[in-house]
């Protein structure tokens, strides 16, 4: 929304000038002024001690406004890969069920590819209806046929909310759907709530490398679409007796200009998948070099855990990107997360702070990682980790 400064309230204290990423705030005639460089990013809204910076809602032009009341229902894209339902689909059904109950509407899932048995399973996980096609074109993922059929289903049935996993597939084809439907899509959400009065979906997501959180609305158009980070939402309740309707949809005449020639599953060099691990031992810049990760691997071996890393350690080239935890890496939610030599930039925290228990080992008592740590150990990790490894070995031998 357009942002302006109330000239009567402004005291030209310059608090706002440094926070603007676009250098769009200048002092003119003894008052701050937002000039044409403004990109309406809203970052300046909270900094003014006088409360002089405000957003101004502009009326949508007549005729542009969609009839929002024609859109009812919550939809979830149930992703399958090689005929196996991706775990995020169950998490979406959990979140979708909650939203649908708040809105007092049906929850539907869309399954492209897979089997009728999978479709029935989605009902047990919370769906009232499943739109399903087992057309061979959906066996492998190609953006165009996925986007085409999904858009046409949305156009026909008009759901008000559409959710998909923020996975390689969801993040690739849903933007095409959004462009086709000309409605809003919010990426990588970590929070979803309904605003009761307007039925708007309040979509919360990290931005600026996870340094800030933003709540985003799509108030003028429907459907309101969001991709949701895997491992953030809780799965719904599995009801073996739940019933619902499977609706077969025709996919005739769909074409794809891309073609998947081969799908290769890569088994990670590491034995345990980071996102499935109960225990994760992560290292950051404090490990000083790639050798530092050997300590973590030894500890991980003892605890049957996986090794993670901060972006700093990955950027240094000490460990592969597949181990990265955080905003630009993986989101994890283990029982125990041990952060070694990680300062705790918000970019990292957003990827691990929902872990059940967090242990932080860091030299610097001021490190932000201690703000989220269940147990903080201030000290040298090269002293503490070998001791920990030694003690755990002793316990194991007993």
């Amino acid at each position: 929304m357009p942002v302006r400064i109330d000239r009567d309230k402004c005291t030209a204290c310059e608090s706002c000038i440094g926070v603007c990423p676009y250098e769009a705030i200048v002092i003119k005639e003894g008052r701050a002024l937002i000039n044409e460089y403004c990109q309406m990013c809203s970052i300046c809204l909270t900094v003014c001690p006088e409360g002089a910076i405000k957003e101004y809602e502009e009326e949508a032009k007549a005729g542009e406004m969609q009839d929002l009341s024609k859109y009812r229902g919550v939809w979830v894209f149930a992703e399958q890969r090689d005929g196996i339902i991706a775990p995020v689909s169950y998490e979406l059904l959990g979140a979708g069920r909650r939203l649908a109950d708040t809105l007092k509407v049906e929850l539907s899932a869309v399954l492209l590819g897979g089997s009728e048995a999978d479709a029935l399973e989605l009902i047990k996980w919370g769906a009232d209806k499943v739109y399903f096609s087992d057309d061979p074109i959906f066996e492998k993922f190609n953006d165009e046929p996925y986007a085409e059929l999904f858009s046409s289903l949305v156009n026909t049935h008009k759901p008000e909310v559409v959710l998909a996993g923020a996975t390689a597939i969801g993040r690739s084809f849903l933007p095409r759907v959004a462009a086709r439907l000309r409605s809003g899509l919010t990426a990588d959400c970590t929070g979803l709530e309904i605003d009761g009065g307007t039925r708007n979906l309040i979509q919360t997501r990290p931005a600026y490398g996870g340094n800030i959180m933003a709540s985003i609305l799509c108030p003028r158009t429907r459907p309101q679409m969001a991709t949701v980070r895997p491992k953030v939402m809780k799965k719904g309740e599995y009801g073996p007796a739940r019933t619902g309707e499977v609706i077969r949809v025709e996919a005739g005449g769909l074409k794809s200009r891309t073609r998947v020639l081969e799908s290769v599953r890569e088994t990670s060099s590491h034995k345990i998948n980071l996102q499935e691990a109960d225990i994760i031992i992560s290292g950051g810049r404090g490990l000083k070099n790639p050798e530092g990760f050997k300590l973590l691997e030894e500890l991980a071996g003892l605890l049957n855990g996986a090794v993670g890393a901060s972006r700093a350690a990955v950027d240094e080239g000490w460990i592969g990107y597949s181990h990265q935890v955080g905003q630009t890496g993986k989101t994890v939610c283990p029982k125990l997360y041990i952060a070694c030599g990680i300062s705790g930039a918000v970019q990292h925290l957003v990827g691990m702070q929902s872990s059940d228990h967090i242990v932080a080992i860091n030299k610097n008592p001021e490190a932000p990682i201690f703000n989220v740590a269940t147990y903080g150990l201030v000290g040298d990790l090269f002293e503490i980790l070998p001791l920990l490894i030694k003690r755990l070995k002793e316990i194991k031998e007993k």
Partner: protein
Amino acid sequence: MNIVVCIKQVPDTAEVRINPETGTLIREGVPSIINPYDMHAIEAALRIKEEKGGKVTAITMGPPQAESALREAISLGADGAVLLTGREFAGSDTLATSFALASAIKKLSADMVICGKQAIDGDTSQVGPEVAEFLGIPHISYVRKITGLEDNSIKVERMMDEGHDVVESQMPLLLTVVRELNEPRLPSLKGKMAAKKAEIKKWAPADIEAPAEKLGFNGSPTQVKRIFTPEAGGERKILTGSPEEMVEELIKELIKKKCL
């Protein structure tokens, strides 16, 4: 081959810090850079040009300062650059941004469009696929390797969550690329000279024949309602004593909590 590379000037988010008292971003002294993933997109385009001949044009939408990102692209070897700038573009979300970029790319008649997989400030990874949809061309996301390139077709490896796919496509198409694709070059001296002298085309909405209601704030279905600093909750305990004592206590606590 006529290649268009979409780039974005972003604050170096690795340098962004939060003011703990006000909960706002401290931007002072944070450098503006070309989005790191876009550097790989530029590199990919330059390598294709070197192999197949043709022209590389860098395009961005942003405030007038974004011109420096385009000059940097020219210093690396891009042949031309376009800056979409004007008040009408302000407040664009990914949809309005993609619409504007696609409208401009239509004027450039590209055989191939290359984007970084996402920008590090917004992290949405939506603009690439949306541009492809507005252009009516196919796209392949998260490309980590180009394994074959003919005049009318391309073969690539795209990263998936549990591995990779080998994908073939017709041209024209749009690719979004990841870091693993290549190692971006540094600007040459000759490039730097060229960048100083190069003329950057500045296009306004009229130049790309885009109606005002589809641009900027008016053309953006999503709106940022609130920005806040993430906060942490839960119980916290700082262990004290010698390293030995801390380790003992930690093990005791973790056993108590059934973590071990």
